[in-house]
């Protein structure tokens, strides 16, 4: 028995798909083999911005072993229309043009043509034989440069929109929005300390280890099947339907195991090309990306410029805050600046706030979601300024956060009021942690040490749509079909909620992630929604099964169904203690009383996914000579609502922290003057390794989410938010120098120390 009276929730069973994954048997997207399989490859633009004058595919088509070549002219040209695909707003014309460039290429790596051949090497040879004639155009890769008058314009027909209103100005600024609450000028006038700082962050990639892949078969009846690894099979189906202009009923997506996503495996890249090549050849076509294609041709998360100003009174109360946030959208509109703006001041109760957000196109890949998209950039700015204010006021930075912390009833700057949240509880847990209370020993090797803290917030999206279909086996086990692809243990976390509801063990549930023809519409595994939203459906499924089993028991025992109770996993008739049985006992007989027991449930809960808050504490040691920052100790504190499988909650926290550390200390797309990424490999795009890190300590706080039957809050995203700011604050503590540009890589730290005498 775990805490809170739960039997399954809060325990740590071995995940259902674990054995397959530790023995190498699990089938990921690229592992699929089909009869008659052809292999595809993509021709990509070498220029960041150019007009396509002509594409000559004749030499490629004549190459021995080549079966088909396609370009954007093989895609239906679709209208400039926004569509709500799952939870992402997508402009379908842009989505199509991003799959295969039409008219112009907008970034180096932009796909222009696809080839299918008898094997991958032949396909890659053929790519080199496609002749594309370009008219090279001036390019712009920096967000502020792209906003300037006279900057090269990516989309000649794009005008800035502003809350539904289109202006008449052609610009790379796709969108400007503003949140305003109270009067910031008045708030700053009340303040005794006002700090205003500028920050920059660079483009970073999700860095999942599995590269993108898609295998398509367009059969003679016009039925398209795609095997792929994706965060959302139904989202892929909808995107395919829109981009290829075909009915959803003609598209089936089979989600295979997915090797990491973090927001980056929702948009389709290869799938429509593989489909066109399959249609052309009549054979299934497999396409996989190389690692450099993943860096240059998928959706990283944006570089950004932020200016944040905050004011507080001498007794430590925040009075006002403003933010100017300009995020790179990449080649097409749609950066996560909106999400960033919703998070930037949200851990705090501030009466006067103004936030201006700008979504700006640049000649880089179209950005995509990456774990709490937009929020890490934002927190880097806010949390560094809060650290500076705390220091000026001479108060402990965590005490300052507790004093100004958001709580139930606090109004967010973007309008809505917080429901029950664990912001202050999380900060207090960090304050009281053994780590924070310990003293940081001096370095014995001439290096300098420091400690930093930072907090972060992520919305956690509302539950979204989820479907579950179950059948009960006579031995009392349950086959559970679901549509949520499992990136990090959600088969387990969903099955556990069903098991809890009906009084079984986690191992009694056999979860299967199935294709889009076999289950009801299910939104993407994203927005930290899955354990909340599909778990919500699992609970509802359990309730449906209990009702059905009561009906069956009523027939078997010949008693009224409404006189049957279900408690602690046992059905019993109120008036006769003999008439009782566990779920399993009844399951063996239930089929005799009305056929097999099945249930199908779909849910789209109204309530909140439960906002997630995190506070992190980090100790660093810095080598002044090299500028290298080593992490000595790291503690992540987070409100999980209710931790269904604590090991996987810890795992989400640890994984998010380490991605945040990579973002903070090393990772960035490095561009040369030609607008070309110069470090598109895992050697040069330096993600953290085992050797860069200590163990990551975790403290799970549980303030139940009132919108979920078991109190679940999403946990996956917020842990990436605080690390860069926590590291910047630790570096300051060690050296007296504040770094306001990411990444805080050795050359940058070394330079900052040299310039500031730190």
């Amino acid at each position, binding site marked *: 028995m775990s805490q809170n009276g739960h039997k399954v929730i809060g325990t740590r069973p071995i995940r259902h798909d674990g054995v397959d994954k530790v023995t190498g048997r699990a089938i990921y997207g690229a592992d699929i083999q089909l009869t008659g399989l052809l292999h595809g490859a993509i021709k990509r633009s070498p220029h960041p911005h150019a007009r396509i004058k002509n594409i000559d595919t004749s030499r490629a088509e004549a190459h021995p072993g080549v079966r088909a070549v396609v370009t954007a002219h093989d895609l239906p040209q679709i209208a400039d229309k926004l569509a709500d695909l799952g939870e992402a707003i997508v402009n379908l014309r842009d989505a199509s043009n991003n799959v295969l460039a039409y008219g112009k290429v907008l970034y180096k790596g932009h796909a222009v043509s696809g080839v299918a051949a008898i094997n991958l090497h032949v396909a890659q040879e053929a790519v080199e034989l496609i002749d594309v004639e370009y008219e090279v155009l001036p390019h712009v890769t920096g967000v502020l440069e792209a906003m300037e008058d006279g900057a090269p314009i990516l989309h000649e027909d794009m005008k800035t929109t502003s*809350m539904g209103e289109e202006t008449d100005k052609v610009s790379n600024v796709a*969108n400007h929005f503003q949140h305003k609450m109270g009067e910031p000028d008045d708030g700053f006038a009340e303040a005794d300390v006002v700090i205003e700082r500028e920050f920059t962050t660079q483009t970073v990639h999700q860095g999942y280890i599995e590269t993108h892949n898609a295998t398509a078969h367009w059969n003679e009846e016009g039925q398209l099947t795609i095997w792929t690894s994706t965060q959302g099979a139904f989202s892929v189906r909808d995107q395919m339907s829109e981009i290829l202009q075909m009915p959803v009923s003609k598209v089936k997506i089979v989600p295979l195991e997915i090797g990491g996503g973090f927001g980056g495996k929702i948009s389709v890249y290869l799938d429509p090309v593989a489909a066109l090549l399959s249609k052309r050849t009549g054979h299934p076509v497999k396409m996989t990306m190389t690692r450099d294609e993943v860096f240059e041709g998928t959706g990283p998360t944006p570089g950004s410029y932020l200016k944040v100003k905050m004011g507080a009174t001498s007794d430590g109360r925040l009075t006002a805050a403003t933010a100017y946030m300009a995020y790179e959208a990449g080649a097409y509109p749609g950066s996560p600046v*909106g999400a960033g703006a919703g998070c930037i001041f949200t851990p705090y109760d501030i009466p006067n706030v103004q936030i201006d957000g700008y979504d700006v196109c640049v000649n880089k890949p179209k950005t995509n979601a990456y774990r709490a998209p937009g929020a890490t950039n934002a927190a880097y700015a806010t949390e560094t300024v809060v650290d500076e204010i705390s220091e000026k006021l001479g108060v402990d930075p965590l005490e300052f956060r507790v004093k100004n912390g958001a709580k139930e009833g606090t109004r967010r700057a973007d309008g*809505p*009021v*917080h429901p029950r949240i664990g912001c202050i509880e999380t900060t207090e847990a960090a304050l009281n942690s053994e780590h924070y209370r310990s003293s940081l020993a001096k370095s014995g090797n001439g290096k300098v040490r420091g400690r930093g803290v930072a907090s972060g917030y992520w919305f956690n999206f509302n539950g979204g749509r989820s479907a579950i279909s179950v059948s009960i086996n006579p031995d009392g086990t349950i086959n559970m079909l679901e549509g949520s692809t499992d990136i990090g243990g959600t088969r387990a976390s969903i099955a556990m909620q069903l098991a809890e509801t009906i009084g079984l063990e986690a191992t009694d549930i056999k979860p299967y992630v199935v294709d889009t023809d076999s289950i009801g519409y299910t939104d993407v595994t994203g927005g930290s929604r899955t354990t909340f939203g599909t778990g919500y459906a699992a609970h509802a499924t359990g309730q449906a099964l209990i009702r059905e089993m009561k009906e069956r028991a009523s027939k078997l025992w010949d008693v009224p169904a409404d006189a049957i109770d279900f408690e602690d996993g046992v059905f019993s008739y109120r008036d006769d203690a003999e008439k009782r049985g566990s779920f399993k006992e009844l399951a063996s007989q239930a089929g005799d009383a009305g056929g097999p027991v099945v249930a199908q449930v779909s849910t789209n809960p109204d309530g909140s996914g439960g906002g997630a808050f995190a506070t992190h504490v980090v100790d660093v040691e810095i080598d002044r000579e090299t500028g290298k920052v080593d992490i000595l100790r790291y503690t992540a504190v987070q409100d999980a609502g209710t931790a269904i499988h604590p090991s996987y909650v810890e795992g989400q926290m640890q994984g998010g922290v380490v991605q945040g550390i990579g973002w903070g200390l090393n990772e960035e797309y490095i561009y040369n003057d030609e607008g070309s990424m110069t470090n598109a490999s895992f050697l040069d795009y330096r993600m953290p390794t085992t050797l860069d890190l200590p163990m990551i300590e975790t403290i799970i706080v549980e303030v139940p989410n009132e919108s979920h039957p078991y109190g679940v809050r999403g946990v996956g995203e917020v842990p990436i938010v605080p690390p860069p700011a926590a590291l910047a604050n630790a570096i300051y503590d060690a050296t007296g120098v504040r770094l306001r540009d990411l990444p805080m890589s050795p050359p940058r730290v070394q330079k900052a120390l040299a310039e500031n005498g730190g």
Partner: protein
Amino acid sequence: MATIYIPSLMRDLTGGKEIIHIEGADMRQIIANLETAYPGFKQRLLEEGTQRIKPNIAVMIDGRNARRILLDKVNEDSEIHFLPAISGGI
């Protein structure tokens, strides 16, 4: 009457008013009544010729996302916000 928070960039339609009160049992009625009181909102909020909210705008009723077809019920004491929809926010 429900309380509507007008985003700063739409306050040109309300003569600068940040908070207004509008009658309506569901979002469609709210928007219709809003349009009557302050013309221009329909054009800003709805897809042309439809009862669907524009995909780049999110309506929140009491802190939760309303459905884009605007059939959500609204209470007397509800708070309604119009926000930029979060794109890429997954």
